């Protein structure tokens, strides 16, 4: 099972190597990993998608790294998760229209048009990306570039009314 873990680390040289080495050494499986700056220049955020039954040791071992400041596991529904991908598909003249139609439904952006291919950019919920890929597969996927997942927790706003959640 995949778990999404956000790790706030001090922005120090080699911190990615430390996290990666710890995962390898402890036998934890990384499904995807994305690193980037945060609002605080002294800190970076890593969003790690980890494959495994139990996250307790993963989280504790992350905390053991001296540069790890905060670790949060995003329980499904609690976080907002996004990925971006670019996918190039075979698009012979007779198939072009239906491919573009499918792309339009998914709000995928056409970023390159070739003689026999179309290239789309799609950003959004990981599930939507997977669905779009499945839809494109029969046409023939020529190339695919996909980012790791980034995630942020939802800001829970009750607005005085119990249980009313609003997404960001």
């Amino acid at each position, binding site marked *: 099972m995949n778990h999404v873990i956000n790790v706030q680390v001090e922005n120090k040289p080699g911190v990615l*190597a430390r996290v990666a080495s710890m995962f390898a050494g402890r036998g934890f499986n990384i499904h995807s990993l994305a690193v980037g700056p945060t609002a605080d220049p002294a800190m970076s955020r890593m969003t790690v998608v980890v494959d495994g039954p139990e996250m307790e*040791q993963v989280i*504790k071992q992350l905390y053991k790294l001296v540069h790890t400041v905060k670790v949060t596991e995003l329980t499904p529904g609690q976080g907002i998760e996004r990925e971006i991908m670019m996918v190039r598909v075979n698009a012979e003249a007779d198939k072009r229209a239906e491919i573009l139609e499918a792309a339009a439904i998914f709000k995928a952006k056409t970023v390159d048009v070739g003689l026999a291919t179309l290239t789309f950019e799609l950003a959004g919920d990981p599930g939507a990306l997977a669905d779009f890929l499945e839809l494109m597969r029969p046409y023939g996927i020529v190339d695919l570039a996909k980012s790791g997942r980034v995630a942020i927790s939802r800001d829970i706003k009750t607005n005085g009314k119990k249980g009313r959640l609003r997404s960001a």
Partner: protein
Amino acid sequence: MSNTMTGAQALIHALESQGVDIVFGVPGGAILPAYDPLLDSPIRHVLARHEQGAGHMASGYAHATGRVGVMVATSGPGATNLITPLQDCYMDSIPVVAITGQVATHSIGNDAFQEAHTWGISMPATKHNYLVTDAADIPEVVNEAFHLASTGRPGPVLIDLPKDVLAATMNWHDPKEIKLPGYRPSVKGHPLQVKAAIDMILESEQPVLYTGGGVIRAGGAAELRAFAELADLPVVTTLMARGAMPDSHPLCLGMSGMHGSYTATTAIQRSDLLVTIGARFDDRVTGEVKSFAPDAKIIHVDVDPAEIGKVRKADVPIVGDAKAILGQLIEVMEKKLGGKRSPERTDWHEQIAEWQRDYPLKFDQDPEGPIQQQYVISELHRLTGGDAIVVAGVGQHQMWASQFWGFERPNTWINSGGLGTMGYAVPAAVGAKAGKPDEVVFAIDGDGCFQMTMQELITASVEGIPAKIAVMNNGSLGMVKQWQKLFYHERFSATDLTNHTPDYVKLAEAMGCVGIRAERPADVVPALEKALAINDKPVVVDFVCDPDAMVFPMVVAGGSNDDVIMSMTDLPDPAGPQPEDVI
């Protein structure tokens, strides 16, 4: 004094400000700048004959004194030779700092002469490590390194210093306040958890205090004893906790696990509550996890939250320092008892006493037969009154030393527990003796182990560090041979050392030590007396021992602790399941 100095001078100055009195190392090209100001420093440098030796010396020093041990090596091969001692200290939570030279910053990544990616190689073998790229950072880095090594769960920290950084000039400044937002080890335990633990202990009918090296590292031996007496708890001291509770104490059951006493192992198996302090449910302690202490609730006190729940789920987890939490446990227990005695657990104590009567640790020394190692260890204990620091290698001799030495004080048992590093004993004994010159330091070493690192006896004689080494010469890699005997149909592959037995007495003399030999049981006491009377030179005693002796009790690796094998007669079926673990 001018504040302008080189990075190398800053390094030595920083070590001095940490109170370092001794470092163990070997110089070389990249670390050369640091060796120059060392000449003018009050810090003593002990020139080891191999960097691995330097590393284990720093570890032995830290074990014996409780202070941070320091090892120094050059780049490349010097640094890679430190990896074994670093990993060893990591597994056993020993506070050490390693200083390594590195090729100049502009050469890094160019496969320069004696370049190794020390930072990357040492990362998984250290608690934390640094590559310093600016000499101005040295005061902070050294200060942080010592802080990390000695606080929380202690461990090794490495500082890699490129040659140009050591040669650069900088302005000395006292280190700024340590700012590590991600490093805040707990000391005190959560009061509610402490209370919950006490309630659980008061309800328990068959409790055991299962203690590990964390108690010794935290300096909590006195508190452990006070708490065990107050709450009337039998105490098991794991391999790393030997000496945390006096073996002579009626509540002390000694070591449990693979080669533990029947009583200690079985008391844990039958317990209804394990009060675990600074121990980590190591596989050598638990055997098969699913049948380990099946009816026991678990209180788990550890300074490292990652240890809690790693192997066995805790019913009451308490994160913090073992000494501090033992203090809290005592306080709450005293309040709860209000001057009354803790509940009597007569049946439990009687059961334990019966096991002790029925299954004692024992050995037979036939006066006409070969020397038994247990006899040597027992006689050494008698002659010293147990007042010595005992260091061990890895193998049968180590297990016998742990079983048959009656430990009375913490920090008097120095061995490689977690990593099981053969060759640990000689250099660790040298380091321990350097740190505790007034104590008798006696290594109980195997002949296989001795041949791995004996050259550090040259260091010992040159430096005037009179450690003593008993070479338990059974002519074999005995522990491995024991497994071959038990599990590989007596097919002794590569465990015989007798095709050429070196003359250990001559070897000792060649290295500037006194060499003594004992071949028969009657030689043992005179040899030990002679060794103990020599205080100005290192001594090596070659004990020619029984080549066929086996360590018992034994629980087969991966087997259940319910099946303690007491002797050759209750061996498992050789056609049965074979052990999967390695020694």
